[in-house]
């Protein structure tokens, strides 16, 4: 058991492409940290540097009290779960689980005990003597997790482990992974591009974009107070509305509509962020022309236009809709960002 500390880590590829830039983050012992970001944001590269599969250009990675920069992946006391499971196709499930232990000269009875324990936890006991190809996607995923568990490592690293599963199984497996991690209390780093997966699983959420950390913290805090327009748009589904607005004499205006009064801010352009679920019908705020409606069952997503700007509103499924819709949001649910830098203004 150990915390992981990443100190000003950068990765520059041979061609001069910089994938990760001066990233620093501390993951406390036993925490479930999720690295989330769009593809190409450097999240996998960062994970692979922690695993030792990718050389670190500069900076330090510490696992427990050890600086691991120059250690082989096998000596870092980590276990990794890969996107396509990476099970050894010619070995039975049992051999897959025990291969890492055999290479470490673990005594036979100890291997047998750990494999059995992992098989019990993951309910893969009946498949121990099958080859991976005879298993379903979810079962293979479990075996891949089992291979990590038997090692009893200081940290688990997950590289988009659920992206090959169908939607239903993904939801089920993500709950299982989270429960398992709670139960074992092993520090984990989980990479995903799925913000929903990230939100639901993370003790600590780290949003990466363009090789730098946009924001880190507890998932709900990030959801409630996104630090940048990028995070605002990336975390949450449907995404937060980002609307061009301006402040004039203490009033917040979108086009000609007054959205809020008494804004303590100098006059000028701002980007206004409002979550679709924070918009309520009525009042004198935005005046939308309804463009189209997505029926989600539990709710309906109304896509509308306010003076040419797109706005999405979440409404109850039975809400009567006309051609036009007036919506407003409480003052404490408005997020203001600098339109030039994208940073939050009331931080």
């Amino acid at each position, binding site marked *: 058991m150990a915390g992981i500390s990443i100190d000003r880590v950068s990765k520059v590829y041979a061609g001069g492409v910089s994938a990760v830039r001066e990233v620093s983050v501390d993951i406390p012992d036993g925490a479930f940290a999720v690295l989330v970001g769009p593809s190409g944001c450097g999240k996998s590269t960062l994970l692979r540097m922690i*695993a*030792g*599969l990718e050389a670190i250009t500069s900076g330090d990675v510490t696992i427990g009290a050890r600086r691991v920069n120059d250690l*082989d*992946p*096998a000596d870092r006391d*980590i*276990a*990794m779960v*890969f*996107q*396509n499971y*990476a*099970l*050894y*196709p*010619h070995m039975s499930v049992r051999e897959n689980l025990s*291969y*890492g232990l055999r*290479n*470490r000269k673990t005594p036979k009875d100890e291997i047998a005990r750990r494999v059995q324990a992992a098989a019990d936890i993951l309910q893969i006991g009946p498949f121990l003597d099958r080859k991976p*190809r005879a298993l379903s996607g979810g079962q293979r995923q479990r075996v891949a997790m089992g*291979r990590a568990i038997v090692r009893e490592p200081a940290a688990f690293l997950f590289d988009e482990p659920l992206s090959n599963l169908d939607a239903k199984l993904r939801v089920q497996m993500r709950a299982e992974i989270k429960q398992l991690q709670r139960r074992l209390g092993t520090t984990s780093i989980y990479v995903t591009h799925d913000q929903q997966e990230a939100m639901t699983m993370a003790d600590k959420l780290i949003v990466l974009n363009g090789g730098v950390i946009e924001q880190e913290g507890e998932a709900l805090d990030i959801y409630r107070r996104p630090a940048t327009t990028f995070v605002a748009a990336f975390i949450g589904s449907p995404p937060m509305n980002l609307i061009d607005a301006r402040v004039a004499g203490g009033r917040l205006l979108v086009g000609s509509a007054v959205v809020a009064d008494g804004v303590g801010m100098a006059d000028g352009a701002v980007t206004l962020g409002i979550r679709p679920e924070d918009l309520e019908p009525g009042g004198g705020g935005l005046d939308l022309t309804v463009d189209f409606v997505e029926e989600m069952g539990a709710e309906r997503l109304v896509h509308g236009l306010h003076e040419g700007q797109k706005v999405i509103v979440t409404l109850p499924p039975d809400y009567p809709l006309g051609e036009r819709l007036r919506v407003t949001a409480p003052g404490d649910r408005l997020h203001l960002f600098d339109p030039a830098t994208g940073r939050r203004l009331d931080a």
Partner: protein
Amino acid sequence: MVENRPWLTLLAHVVLTFGVALVAFPVWIALVASTHEPSTFLSGVVPLWFGDNAYDSYATMLSAGISTSGAPPVSGMLFNSMVMAILIAVGKIAISLTSAFAIVYFRFPFRQAAFWMIFITLMLPVEVRILPTFEVVAGLGLLNSYAGLTIPLIASATATFLFRQVFLTIPDELTEAARIDGAGPLKFFKDILIPLSRTNIAALFVILFIYGWNQYLWPLLITTDDGSYTIVAGIKRMAEVAEADPQWNFIMATAVMAMLPPVLVVLLMQRLFVKGLVETEK
């Protein structure tokens, strides 16, 4: 495509039957000839059915050979051919596996150059470099030895390219999983790569065994001693008797026996080969 054109079907069958006959007829003649008296074939009429001399032909060739035409017993030549073919197949596979492993998994200076150098050996089979190679082998005192028979033929990594392609299809994540599981390069090679290339190795073994077995020119050149003749080259020596008629029944019996081992290898390995082709998942 479902088609029903009787004439086309008929034509296809005629062509195929003709092709099979063309290949099978000489084999049939060899089989038949090996069962007749030596004189039968010299009469000018080629018999199409078995004679009654089979036991004599095969027993003589296996145990005694024909001393008049300087042919040693076939059993010894079969053994030599077997050793040569196996050494060539195993040697070539071993060299190709390790060189492909180096080229695909290690970053070293002039890696691409090394690969192309190996590739170029494809253009230099023994027949092309036969005189210099003979010179070298003779200089090393390897005439009439298994080493001399096989090493010059092994020394071309024909299959490196094949194994390189096989290794490139093995996902990187598998390599990384093995690294995290604490498998060093040699362990990875032994535990992961070789089992995953098993079917390719089997297929290649069949091809290379036959290649080795059918070697003719090189053994003919470097074996001068009865005890180290190989069977394919030996047949030629038998047919080339100086002052007598060739004893066709003995020659044909030898030819039939020379054909058997490759056939057996193909038949036996084919099962593994096909089974392997079905299991494609990596």
